[in-house]
């Protein structure tokens, strides 16, 4: 008699609860859509060499400037974040150029400027670092937050990328900064 009650009343409720908890757990542990394409991130700090799959980067200096100039005589006013860096390929020169250079500030994403002569799109050499500068033109209201710099090769899908946190609010504004000439790192 007792076993009949257990079979007809208790078991269905226990099963229902177990299934609901299981469904909830699956929803919780499922990664968001697109996670399968996320790159592998290596965190970097200033003057520390960081390496991803086929990319080795040392960020040597970070400036904030009211104007930038390059060695070809180009100059532009604005609020600029200038990143000086050394970079090399690690495995192969094939397809190794620094094409991904973004800065995420809050919910906004900026890309490294294509103006002037910068290190953007520069071909990298395996094992021999080259140096140069990247520049980001930012709106004035972005300088109160922190930004995340992301550097990678052409397509960051499932590739290694290097990320560095930059506290924009802490950077003193210089009047003018010259972009490093692209060349071999010293």
């Amino acid at each position, binding site marked *: 008699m007792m076993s009949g009650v257990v079979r007809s009343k208790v078991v269905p409720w226990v099963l229902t609860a177990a299934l609901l908890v299981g469904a909830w757990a699956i929803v919780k542990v499922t990664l968001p*859509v*697109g996670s399968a394409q996320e790159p592998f991130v290596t965190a970097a700090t200033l003057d520390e060499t960081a390496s991803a799959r086929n990319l080795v980067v040392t960020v040597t200096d970070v400036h904030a400037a009211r104007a930038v100039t390059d060695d070809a005589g*180009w*100059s*532009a006013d*604005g609020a600029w974040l200038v990143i000086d860096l050394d970079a090399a390929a690690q495995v192969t020169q094939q397809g190794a150029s620094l094409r991904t250079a973004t800065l995420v500030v809050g*919910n*906004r*994403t*900026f*890309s490294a*400027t*294509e*103006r*002037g002569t910068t290190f953007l799109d520069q071909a990298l050499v395996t094992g021999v670092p080259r140096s140069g500068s990247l520049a*980001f*033109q*930012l*709106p004035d*209201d*972005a300088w109160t937050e922190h930004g995340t710099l992301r550097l990678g090769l052409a397509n960051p899908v499932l590739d290694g990328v290097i990320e560095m946190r930059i506290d924009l609010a802490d950077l003193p504004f210089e009047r003018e900064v010259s972009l490093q000439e692209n060349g071999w790192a010293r």
Partner: protein
Amino acid sequence: MGEEKASGAAAARANASARAKVLGWARRTVDLVPTGWLITGAGAVLLATTAAFGGLATVPVAPAPELAAGEVYTGSDLEVTVLGVELRDDQGNSAIYPDPDSGEKVLVVTVDVTNRFEKPRSASGGEFDEGSVGAIRVGGLEDDPLLSYAEDGGTATTLQPDVPVRLLLAWRVGTDDFHDGDAVTLTLPASTHRVGDSLLRGTDLWEDPHVGATMTTTVEQVSAP
């Protein structure tokens, strides 16, 4: 044994009659619902609502608003201010070098642009990015303009979020196509943003480009601050 069978049969009969009773009751209840009246009523309400909103008449398309020179236009996630249209004999900071022997000229539209989307945007636009600055048209010219920075003449490719820039949109025109003092009409683009799915998953798309505003101005030298 036989008695048990008989009582079993009696129970089955009782069950069957109980089921028939319930079914009959349900049928009678359902029959009480005036289905025909409901359908007719719902149809009438639908038709009346349609008629109230204009029936099958074509919805009049609101004409694109007419802007004054220097007025800020917001469309396609961009803020655009047209500063003027000028005709040049020389290249200046525009992206087009007019051949002096053939008498070509350059028609230049000067605009201030701010990208109000949260990611960088192509200035000239593209297959999946329609209605960007490169979709501005003037004086019936069909071609895409070439874009450069007014400041230094460098090629303008990317609009960074919330960073205002002054761009020159340049078209190569013939000697007699435009003259100083001509009245020309500009069209400013509008489009709709959508995030792509399947193959374009996560890609920002601007689709359905159309004219968001028009502006009439004269061809004359731009003296922007």
